């Protein structure tokens, strides 16, 4: 097969005035603008571009389209580029994959010699013993992995996404698809026409001048109608409710853009894919499909060989023969399968066809064999819509059977006909699509609160009145009397399939998984029907009985970059976050929030807070504004303790449980006025507690009058803690009565602070110090923060971060839900039994807690976990959080450390942990197994608080 550029042709898509340089395996070559990588390589007489996966046989181009199984090349840092489809660009660095050491001299080709032993599934039968050697074998096998190389330094380029709501999406820009798009648009629908190739026209692109004139005319009509035409774009999937994914590679400045279209109607006009023929030597370079030859000659002006045999069963083969003749290739034999002609083998060197054996046993010298034996309907998008294709033996292909009525198929997928008939069917399909889309639009608009009101009654759902396209007779040509390759990318032959079926892998799905046929990069676009046909033959069944494997998304592979798009992950910031970072805070990712972890020295932050006054930004604290007469009832329901008597100005702590009694969240709620409460939740529980409250109000207690409004972002929260906090707050809120007798621990006031109205100030203290938590309208939060820093200068004010707060709360023995408790910790285990009020009529989780509290089985009781404080006997050892508590010298787990720190205040290690009740008595000595394997002892404390257990500082 000697290839070369032909003289200029009327339909070519290349621009011979523009030379495009590129390199092939380091060698400098050039092609023309408009070439694909593949056509340029062939024009340069480069034919062998890859080696087959298992046997490393030399391979060349067959179909010259995206699905060409042997054409995956490395281009720069991009692996697996479809070179028969991808347009050549200046400077492309193209190289072969899956070859060693080079595409022309491949040592692994020795595999070919032992081919008869490397049958499908051979690895299941080998390397079994000794097992110790398998990892070694595995490493060797892995070097056979096909595919290109990933450059791990590849930058994330510019990928993008958008949504769309077209009335009609048309997949496929051949004549049928174009006609459908035109008629739908003419009927008033908004239409998106998507074509996988670089240009519209489908198979007409490699047809004659009159074909192209029609394409030009239809293209102009599409422009005039304002149809959104996307070329070099693929409809990659159809999901529930016509959620359509489109990979657009032609948007300026964007590598790949994912369009998510909610189409009212999807029209599938994907055309047909040409099927290879199974016979001996069918993977040898020089065997091509008729469509491949026609593209090569007519679109790229490349001569595919010099002496050709053409095996034809249809027009496409006849036309290919004519095209070859016109290009000066001598067609030494036109074998007509419609008249019983056939081909049984090609012979030649491993890298070149030299002769063709015909069914009658005679041979022809030739360097090119062209086959035109039929089509595969790429029904993939229809299958994704729930349709199962059915087989028509007389037409020798699968057809759609019953797609949902929002998905319509047209063109070659549904039948055959003249160009006029195809266009006619497409036109009728477009009209039907538009009419159905109008009904769907009516429904959407009439049920959407924000939409315009609709006029008149809902139109009827249009029934399908299209005249069907005929199924043209086609011989069932799948396999010759010889065996050959069925799956070229996976190197699976018909012989492998027969053997696998005989072994019991004789349903199409098992056959696929055992042999990997159809699992390669083209996903069965070329191989499915031949696989099924060979299995049917092996089982003595019909193709219809055997059925096909399932096509799944995507229709064509889509880049991970395209699926990801711009990488944007929501981030929440408090009004002071910039200040924190400007003042040396180490940022801490806490869910969606970014928070200050510490400003350099957490221990010093603790000491300063305990000694002077510290301020911490606790803005992420969940905050809910509750209003309405039934708020106390709601609180009684959600929390385990009682709320009816909370006075105005009072604040109370509560624990929330789920219905299984497991602790869900905790926090304080204060009563700001008669009718208005402010509830706080943990930072991570903010959203879920809000939804939880709404859930109870809307579904179980719909008669209660409570309005819940999330105000987490509305108020920034600053905790001012330490013995001098009263002094500092006093300076900023001169009108606020801070007298400890009148503004007591666990009370709340609304006040003007630093000139900011409507601040909520409550006296509570997670840190265990005298402290005031100020919830300030967020727009003034930075102002307040700066004023606290400024006005507190002489008091020694300093900011503290999350780490210092964690230390202080641990010193004080406050547990953290989700850290000191877990998904099984019921409320009584927290040591907060006093907060569980079983005499309330109802609260969430009550029955489980009742049974928990009533249970008197000593075996159960003694093993129930309890949250306790622990101190190591050696005060300098801080056991890592999650260190296990074990019984004595055994390995029996009796609990674990849930929190631990070195206390800057006490100068010793302190812990909280969960431990079985039987070991939880104060004074017990228990064993901690450190993560380094050492065992140390620790004493269970009487109080959770290691520091100021009576709370004198807090209340002072």
């Amino acid at each position: 097969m000697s290839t070369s550029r032909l003289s200029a042709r009327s339909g070519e898509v290349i621009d011979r005035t523009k030379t495009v340089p590129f390199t092939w395996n380091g060698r400098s070559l050039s092609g023309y603008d408009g070439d694909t990588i593949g056509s340029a390589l062939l024009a340069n007489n480069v034919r062998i571009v890859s080696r087959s996966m298992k046997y490393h046989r030399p391979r060349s181009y067959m179909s010259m389209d995206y699905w060409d199984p042997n054409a995956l090349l490395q281009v720069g840092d991009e692996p697996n580029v479809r070179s028969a489809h991808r347009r050549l660009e200046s400077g492309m660095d193209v190289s072969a994959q899956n070859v060693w050491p080079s595409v022309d001299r491949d040592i692994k080709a020795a595999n070919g010699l032992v081919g008869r032993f490397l049958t499908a599934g051979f690895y299941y039968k080998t390397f079994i013993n000794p097992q110790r050697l398998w990892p070694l074998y595995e490493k060797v096998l892995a070097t056979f992995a096909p595919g290109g190389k990933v450059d791990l330094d590849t930058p994330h380029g510019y990928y993008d996404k958008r949504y769309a709501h077209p009335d009609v999406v048309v997949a496929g820009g051949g004549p049928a698809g174009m006609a459908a798009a035109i008629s739908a648009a003419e009927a008033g629908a908004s239409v998106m026409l998507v074509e996988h190739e670089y240009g519209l026209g489908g198979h007409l692109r490699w047809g004659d001048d009159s074909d192209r004139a029609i394409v030009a005319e239809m293209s102009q009509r599409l422009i005039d109608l304002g149809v959104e035409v996307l070329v070099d774009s693929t409809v990659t999937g159809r999901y529930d409710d016509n959620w359509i994914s489109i990979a657009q590679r032609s948007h300026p400045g964007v590598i790949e853009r994912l369009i998510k279209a909610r189409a009212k109607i999807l029209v599938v006009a994907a055309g047909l894919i040409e099927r290879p023929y199974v016979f001996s030597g069918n993977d040898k370079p020089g065997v091509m499909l008729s469509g491949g030859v026609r593209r090569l000659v007519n679109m790229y002006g490349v001569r595919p060989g010099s002496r050709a045999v053409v095996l034809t069963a249809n027009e496409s083969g006849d036309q290919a023969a004519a095209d070859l003749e016109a290009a000066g290739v001598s067609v030494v034999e036109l074998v007509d399968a419609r008249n019983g002609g056939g081909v049984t083998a090609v012979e030649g060197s491993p890298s070149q066809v030299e002769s063709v054996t015909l069914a009658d046993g005679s041979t022809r010298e030739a360097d090119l064999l062209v086959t035109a034996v039929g089509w595969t309907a790429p029904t993939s998008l229809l299958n994704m819509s729930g349709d199962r294709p059915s087989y028509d033996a007389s037409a020798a292909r699968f057809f759609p059977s019953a797609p949902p009525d929002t998905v319509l198929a047209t063109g070659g997928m549904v039948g055959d006909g003249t160009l006029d008939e195809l266009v006619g069917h497409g036109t009728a399909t477009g009209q039907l699509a538009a009419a159905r889309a109008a009904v769907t639009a009516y429904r959407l608009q009439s049920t959407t609160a924000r939409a315009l009101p609709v006029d008149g009654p809902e139109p009827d759902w249009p029934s399908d009145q299209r005249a069907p396209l005929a199924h043209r007779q086609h011989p069932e040509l799948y396999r010759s009397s010889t065996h050959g390759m069925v799956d070229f990318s996976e190197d699976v032959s018909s012989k492998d399939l027969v053997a696998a079926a005989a072994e019991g892998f004789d349903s199409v799905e098992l056959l696929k998984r055992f042999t990997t046929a159809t699992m390669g990069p083209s996903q069965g676009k070329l191989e499915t029907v031949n696989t099924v046909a060979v299995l049917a033959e092996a089982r003595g069944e019909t193709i219809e009985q055997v059925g096909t494997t399932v096509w799944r998304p995507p229709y064509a592979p889509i880049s991970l970059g395209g699926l990801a798009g711009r990488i944007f992950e929501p981030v929440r910031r408090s009004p002071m976050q910039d200040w924190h970072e400007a003042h040396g805070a180490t940022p801490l990712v806490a869910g969606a929030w970014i928070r200050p972890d510490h400003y350099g020295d957490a221990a010093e932050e603790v000491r300063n807070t305990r000694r002077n006054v510290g301020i911490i930004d606790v803005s992420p604290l969940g905050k809910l504004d509750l209003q309405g007469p039934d708020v106390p009832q709601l609180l009684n329901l959600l929390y385990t303790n009682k709320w009816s008597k909370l006075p105005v100005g009072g604040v109370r702590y509560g624990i929330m449980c789920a219905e299984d009694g497991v602790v869900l969240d905790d926090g304080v709620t204060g009563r700001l006025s008669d009718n208005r409460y402010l509830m706080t939740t943990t930072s991570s529980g903010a959203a879920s507690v809000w939804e939880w409250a709404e859930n109870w109000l809307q579904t179980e207690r719909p008669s209660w009058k409570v309005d819940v409004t999330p105000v987490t972002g509305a108020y920034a929260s600053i905790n001012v803690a330490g013995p001098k906090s009263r002094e500092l707050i006093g300076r900023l809120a001169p009108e606020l009565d801070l007298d400890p007798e009148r503004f007591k621990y666990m009370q709340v006031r609304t006040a003007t602070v630093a000139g900011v109205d409507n601040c909520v100030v409550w006296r509570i203290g997670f840190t265990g110090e005298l402290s005031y938590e100020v919830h300030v309208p967020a727009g003034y939060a930075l102002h307040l923060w700066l004023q606290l820093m400024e006005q507190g200068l002489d008091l020694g004010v300093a900011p503290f971060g999350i780490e210092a707060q964690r230390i202080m709360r641990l010193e004080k023995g406050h547990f953290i839900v989700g850290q000191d408790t877990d998904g099984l910790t019921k409320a009584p285990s927290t040591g907060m039994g006093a907060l569980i009020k079983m005499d309330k009529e109802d609260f969430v989780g009550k029955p489980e807690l009742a049974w928990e509290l009533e249970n008197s089985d000593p075996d159960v009781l003694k093993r129930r976990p309890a949250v306790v404080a622990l101190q190591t006997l050696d005060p300098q050892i801080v056991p890592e959080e999650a260190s296990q508590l074990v019984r004595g010298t055994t390995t029996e787990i009796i609990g674990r450390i849930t929190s631990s720190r070195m206390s800057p205040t006490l100068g010793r290690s302190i812990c909280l942990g969960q431990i079985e009740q039987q070991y939880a008595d104060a004074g017990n000595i228990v064993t901690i197994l450190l993560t380094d394997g050492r065992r140390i002892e620790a004493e269970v404390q009487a109080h959770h608080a290691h520091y100021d257990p009576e709370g004198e500082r807090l209340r002072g």
Partner: protein
Amino acid sequence: MADRSLRSRRNGNGKGPERYSAWGLLRKGLAQENWPRAWREVPLRDTYDAVIIGGGVHGLATAYYLAVNHGITNVAVVDKAYIGSGGSGRNTAIVRSNYLTPEGVAFYDRSLELYNSMASDLNINVMFSERGHLTLAHNDGAVRTMRWRAEVNKLQNIDSSVIGPDEIKKLVPSLDTTSDARYPIMGALYHPPGGIIRHDAVVWGYARAADHYGVEIHQKTEVLDILVEGGSGPDGKGPGGKVTGVRTSKGDISAPIVVNCTAGWASLIASMAGIKLPIHTRPLQAAVTEPVKVFLPAVVVSGSLHVYVSQTDRGELVFGAAVDPFNNYNIAGSLDFTEGLAGHILELMPGVSKMRLLRQWAGLCDMTPDYSPVMGFTPVEGFLCDVGWGTYGFKAGPVSGETMAECIATNQTPKLIAPFALDRFPEGTLVGEKGAASVGH
């Protein structure tokens, strides 16, 4: 324990299966002859000692161990489609034993042990690749949970430890371990014995071996009803009843023992016996890329980003994520899954943006409230369950088969599965894996 090698026994047909070996392969290759069927295709009979519903790894392993460990061979495994068509043929094949609770650890560790000797026990290369398993932690809470798991694991002699970003980078160079990542990698639970396995080979291996001992495998045989007598519910089904057989698409079978090994369909089968389960069915999706040269040496899981990834010896990346957001028996899959997946994978491994997703698919998962299975007896006598496998049940196949077989043969609940009994729900004693629920496969 009985001799588990295939050499010693003959199957119900009186014919031994031909042993797989390189030598056999060579001989067959030279002679150009085919291997015999891996399992027989025989007509369904009308009575068996036990009927196992579901030809996934759990059903087939149960049948295999019934035969090999207990000599109970008059057993039918029925599947409505082909073997492995459920979760067993769709999973991402991650095997590990670093669970959170001692019960869980002991159980999965036994499974790993069985996986380790499976190739020679079943005489098939299941390609168990012990390549190491990393569960990444992106915040201090997650690091704490990882350490919790590591510490429990160590006490059970499981190789499992928490490692830091530098070591992670050494093990998996493609990961972004810098601290300016949106979700910085702060550490990982590293479990060297974890890895991946060729899931289909496991299914086929059990099927072939079970068949060899006389078990019958009936594909395309759908169970339509379960025959129960004397129960408290309508039609005599439900608690207090006794199983007498099953109705299938190929006819009725009488059998005193019926085992529900149907994973995603478990509730439907149980309801045929009048039993309610604490299970909801959710699809779990997975996807593969086109193959590229091998660059990812270990299994990487990120609980907070809900993705996991490994690379097969064929070079594809295999991905998974969290279960779908609503109950569903439909495995069509969604675009949201692939979008989220790609976004999160690129956060972890920014260099793979040019790789292409080749195929996505889904399987059904039988989710329980405490991330633990439901195993053993039910209130209907003779009706047993081995279900509730959620997103993690493939790795449990061997040990589940072994213990379920023991349960059936001895009529007693083996200790390893006692914590997983159905009555833990009415009794309110859930299993501790819920304690720090995190995805992990």
